[in-house]
């Protein structure tokens, strides 16, 4: 009897492990919200409450600022081009292109570097 019970226990454990593996494979990966944050001077210049926004929130901030079309927002957008996140910088470039501020954008894209080249390539796709 102890041998049979041990064998039954091993079978149950193996079934549980197999079920766990199957569930892990079938379950779609959980999407965690982007929580990457970084301190950006340009965001802080927009307001103290924006100093520690996540990348996604800074993208939203860029789009919100772009709608203002005033000198202060222009400066913020230029600052956003230097954002550590390339996506935020791309958002700023996209916003500047939409606002017709091509001169400042061209100056930025004319910089040598892989990042400005990539942003320029992506901007071309948006047109």
């Amino acid at each position, binding site marked *: 009897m102890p041998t049979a019970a041990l064998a039954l226990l091993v079978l149950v454990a193996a079934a549980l492990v197999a079920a766990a593996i199957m569930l892990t494979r079938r379950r779609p990966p959980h*999407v965690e919200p*982007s929580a990457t944050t970084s301190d950006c001077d340009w965001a802080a210049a927009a307001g103290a409450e924006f100093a520690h926004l996540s990348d*996604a929130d800074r*993208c939203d901030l860029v789009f*919100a600022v772009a709608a*203002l079309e005033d000198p202060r927002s222009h400066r913020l957008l230029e600052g956003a081009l230097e954002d550590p996140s390339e*996506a935020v910088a791309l*958002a700023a470039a996209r916003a500047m292109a939409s606002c017709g501020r091509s001169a400042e954008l061209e100056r930025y894209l004319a910089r040598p570097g892989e990042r400005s080249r990539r942003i320029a390539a992506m901007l071309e796709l*948006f047109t």
Partner: protein
Amino acid sequence: MRPLSEVFAPGAPTLPERLRTLVVSPERELEPGMTVRATFTFRNQGGAPATGVRLRFNAPDGLIYLVGSGSLDGNPLDDELGNSPLLARAGADIGDVAPDEERRIDVAYSVAGAIENGTTVELQAALASFELPPIGSNVVRLVARSKPQLRNALTRAALETTQHPVPGSEAQVTIYIHNAGESSARDVVVVAPIPEHTSYVAGSARVNGRDVERELGSSFDNVYAPIVVRSLPASASATVSYRVRIDSPLGDGTHIVAEIQVASQETAAFALEPASLTVSAVPDFGDDRTSLTAKPAADVRPGGRVRLTLTAHNAGTAGAARATANFELGENLIPVRGASTIDGSPARDRRKEPLRFALGPIDAGEAVTLCTDAVVASPLEDETVVTAAATLEWEPARDAAGRRLVCGIAVRSDPAFLARRNLVERRGSAIVRPGAQIEAAIVVTNDGSAAAHDAVLHLRLAPELEEVAAFENSARLSLDAGSAGLPHADTIDIGSIDAQETRRITIRARVPSPCPDRRELLVGASLHTRELGETPLREAFWRVDSHPAFTPESSRMELADDSVLRPNQLALVDVLIANTGTDVAHNVRLRLYVSAEARLESVEGATRDKSSLSFGDIAPGGSGRARLGLRLLRSLAKEYPVTIDAVLTADAMLPVPLARLTIATAAEPDFSIGSFRSDPAESVDVGDPVEWVLHVRNGGDGVAHHVAIFVDAPESLIYVPNSTTVNDVAIRDAGTAAPFAAPKGIVLNEVDPGVEATIRWRTVVHNGLPAGTMIAQIARVRYDGEREDQFVAPDLKVRSGPVFANAIAGLPFGLDGVLGPAIGAQRALPEDRFIELPPATPVGEGNGAYALARLTSGSAQDDDAPARAAGTLAAFTPERLERTLRFLREARFGGLVTHLFVVRAFLPDAIGDTHCALTPLRDLLREELDRLFIKLRLPRYAIAPRDIETPSLRSTIERVLHEAALARGVPAEPPTESIVLRGSFDTGPVHELAERLGSAELATATPWAGLARLLPNEASAFARYRSGLADVLDRLSDADSGEFIEELQQRNDAALDAELGALLAAQHETA
């Protein structure tokens, strides 16, 4: 010949009797102790001296040489030590004996004290010399006469017991036999009958400690006169003993006598002095085994039951014929009738003398147990000792015939406060509101058997309670501060509480206001008494029913100033919320519903979470204030003010809608700024073409719904037909006149703020104009039926020179009117210019548009007819198509969201013959999805509903779908060479989807299902993809926003992705 030394050796034969001169006295018989004298005389009968004569006597058994008795011729022979040479082996040296010399030797013996009767004693003397061998005298034989003597003082009998001779005990009969005679007593016989009133203890007979029954072959008591000793030597003793058991019962004083007779062969039987003992037999209840006990005997509580147990043990040697017991219980012991038992059996319950019990006879060694129960009376002071007594009497008895037994019962008495009767009773409802008064009664009941002293009530009150007071019988009690640090005085001294007394103290207090909801208010108490210490009482609880409250009157939204909200301007709105309730409002949130055209731009004083403001917690009476910055995003008509609805929510509170805030908006189109110029700008030769460019822009903040542009055409200019374009789109002339010269002019609809329109047309300067003619053109822009702005083009000066000749080289004739400066110059308007003029656009089905080959006309009521369909068209330049394909490759983020970008990329440019809002829709889609595209490039970005659809996008989609549902025909071919993607759709499902959009939640699948049906499907790859995408989106039509977004980001449809891949590959080849 034996030497002298060997003649009397043991076992040696006697010497021959050669000399009969030995005379012994007595001559025949000896008796023990008798002196035997022997005289031996000899004479040298010879002739020669006998030299070295030596004489020796034998020393027979039973005779003892008398020291000093040996003499030779009267001279002692013994040495100084008393040793006689006559008995020595070498004999006594007689010396020489002359012939005929006679010598005499005397010697005396004593007969031994114990010599067996009949023993023969032989005396002989031996004489020897150097010359003569030993010769023997005559042998004198004496016979010993002796007898045993058993009858002496040492022969006696004894009857003894180890303890008191009581019935049933054992006694030992001991017979001491002593032979005081000179010879052994043979066959000593004892007659020892078992004494009366006793019985022989089997196997107990011993002779000199040795079991004799085995030798007897029978039990000792069954053999009469057994031989106990075969031979009892003289002076020897023998002991015969056996045990007997005294009969029981036996009367007190009974004598037990052992009568013994002893005899032997030599001694006639004689009786010994009888041995006796007297039996003691009386009942006795005097030892400790007779007792009176109480159980329990200590710590007995009043009211407790005590079992009294009288054990009457007859420790005496006689039975008690009658025994009675009589209990005596004090006043604090109450007998329990019917509970008495004797030896476990119920005792008879007497009506009279119920505590007197007849125990009956009690044999010796037996005991009777009498039990009776009593109850300790209550109340009773603590440490009282209650005495119970029992008198035991019995018969017969020698002296006192009774014994009184007493036992004490130690009573432990305490006050007692039972939990069920000592409590704090709540009066009134358990639910109280802040500010209400609560009342509780502290009930204290001493259910114990003793009074409680120094009673003090310690209250445990919820610290929030106010105005705490205590009353007893309407008298206010003083509350003393018991413990430092407590907000309330909590001690009430209520003195002593007698046994069975009940005290009732009323506690009143007021619930504070404000007070948190569900706060449990406690009124508890504990009673402290000297005897019991702290006794906790059951507590009373109230639960506070308190809530925060917000009202539309106290919480509101208001404009910070009276300014009118204009597009792209901020309007400041103050939000004031006040908690008028009695509890803290937790997690206060204000959900804003702002018109789709306005956007919440900034929030000060609250935390913003999407369209909700979080004020955190607001205390009762507290308020929260926030300032909102609202920006009007799009142009609005004046009659559509921005509204803000707000719903205030908080934990544990019903939502409170606040009064709607309406912000007046103002939006006006403005075409006052524009340009009107010509090319060339300043001067022109006659006959030369002039291109006119009118640049108008809605510089206002409102939509111009209807814009009419008129240009006054001077006669100095000749309009080039079909040359008018608006934003490079050719438009139809009005007959032979330019469209702007028509009565309705060039009409633009729905011109959004910031939108520019560039109207170009060409003219030719009349070649008949004189030089210096100034050409002026005025354009008028009339919009919204009220306003009109004018643009005046700079004057264009006509150049012309004089001409005299009319003959020109190459012409075979002279020609009048030849233009002077232009002679030989290139013609101003080459022929192909006219060829390149684009066809008029837009065109529709009703004005000569292409008809779809697969569409047939028919009424909607015709069941056999196919469903009504409309065509779509999307035109791409190769470069744009290539960029679009690259964009879609970059947009493969996984999940269904990729396909939203496909909808954005291939949204048609035209649908049927309708002029629908595809351009705004494309712009909005591009704006929204480009943002989403950027965000999705962030690692692990989770799509939010606002990333998918906004209210403005929804309204635009809804409008496009409604218009598409009404569309007919197919769009016209694009004016420029391009890659055209065509499609057609059934307007019915589109109409249905458009209708559902009104009630559909934002960020759901329905609008995308509608847009998907507008995608091209003429190419097979597009057709398969569009069908698959529509199916997928239709299946998600019932999904809510969260589920749809989950599908967008998580669901991978391999088949649909494959179709998209095939589509992109096909288009890539096309591009």
